[in-house]
């Protein structure tokens, strides 16, 4: 199997991070797509809240205004509104908050499309092959069949848990946050690379 040279891969991967922003209008992040699928019920909740707001807009606005007045008092509320160039709202109809989010099913499409992309790459380069292991290196380190599959289930769980806890993965922190020098992404990327290197050396050491 002939892989792309480093610069060709770099151009493709960097361009993808850019294309994603241009086409979707948000930063690329695959672990976020998994989270959206896991939390699919949240989409419905947001929709129900928006619908409820839409149906009872004046009531909602008055309730919000009353809560704001109770919290800050009339004078402070007027000051805050004036600072934003607004006046105290009367009993006008409020607009419902716009739902700008991506539907969770689109995230599902995203993940399914990656399966298809892998398939197309494998078919077109002639290395498509149905097999039940991850190759010679993986079986040498972690065994075959059920042993290997259990290792994959457990380490996959670490990937799912860790990326959600760390708020991102190789794409979200690495390809999106690091280019923008986001401090949390720089730390996260340094940490997961360091951890992966240490784990790899440790596993090799155990085998020898």
């Amino acid at each position, binding site marked *: 199997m002939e892989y*792309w040279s480093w610069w060709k*891969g770099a151009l493709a991967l960097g361009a993808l991070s*850019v294309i994603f922003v241009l086409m*979707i*209008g948000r930063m690329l992040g695959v672990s976020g797509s998994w989270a959206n699928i896991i939390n699919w019920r949240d989409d419905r909740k947001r929709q129900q809240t928006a619908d409820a707001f839409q149906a009872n807009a004046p009531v909602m606005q008055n309730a919000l205004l009353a809560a704001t007045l109770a919290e800050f008092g009339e004078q402070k509320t007027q000051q805050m509104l004036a600072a934003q160039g607004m006046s105290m709202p009367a009993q006008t109809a409020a607009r419902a908050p716009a739902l700008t989010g*991506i539907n969770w099913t689109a995230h599902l499409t995203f993940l399914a499309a990656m399966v298809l992309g892998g398939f197309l790459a494998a078919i077109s380069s002639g290395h498509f092959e149905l097999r039940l292991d991850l190759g010679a290196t993986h079986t040498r380190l972690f065994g075959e069949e059920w042993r290997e599959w259990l290792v994959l289930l457990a380490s996959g769980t670490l*990937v799912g848990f860790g990326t*959600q806890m760390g708020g991102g993965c190789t794409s979200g922190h690495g390809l999106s946050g690091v280019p923008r020098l986001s401090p949390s992404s720089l730390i996260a990327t340094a940490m997961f690379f360091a951890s992966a290197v240490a784990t790899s050396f440790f596993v090799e050491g155990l085998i020898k």
Partner: protein
Amino acid sequence: MKLTLAQQHLRYALVGILMGFALSHIGFTSYSELHKMFLFQDLRMLFTFAGAVMVAAIFFNFLMAGMPSSKKPMHPGIIPGSLIFGAGWAISGSCPSIALVQLGEGQLAAVFTAFGILFGAWLYRQVHRRFFRWDTGSCG
């Protein structure tokens, strides 16, 4: 950017296919290539990643206006979460997109990795609700 549901599906599908295709050709889906990278025996994919960051950095910082906010706040989960992810990546050979691309290539064992990722993400949600209150600002 406000996208209709059909646009969302179409655009995510297109980027997903391109991404799966590229990741496969780069070799990120091959456990042996990845293992060699983490042991510093073969630096090709390390350069690939670093180069991709440079390409994205040039576009994001100099060529594109009106970028979406990165929304990645600092929180106490970043360091432990990333350390856990790194260990999982080295053992499974998969970050969240790779298991799916591997499935497309016919590496069927990755179905266990994918279920693991799903379970791990679900598990974190339960743990987060119960014990932590910080904002992870998870992307997407």
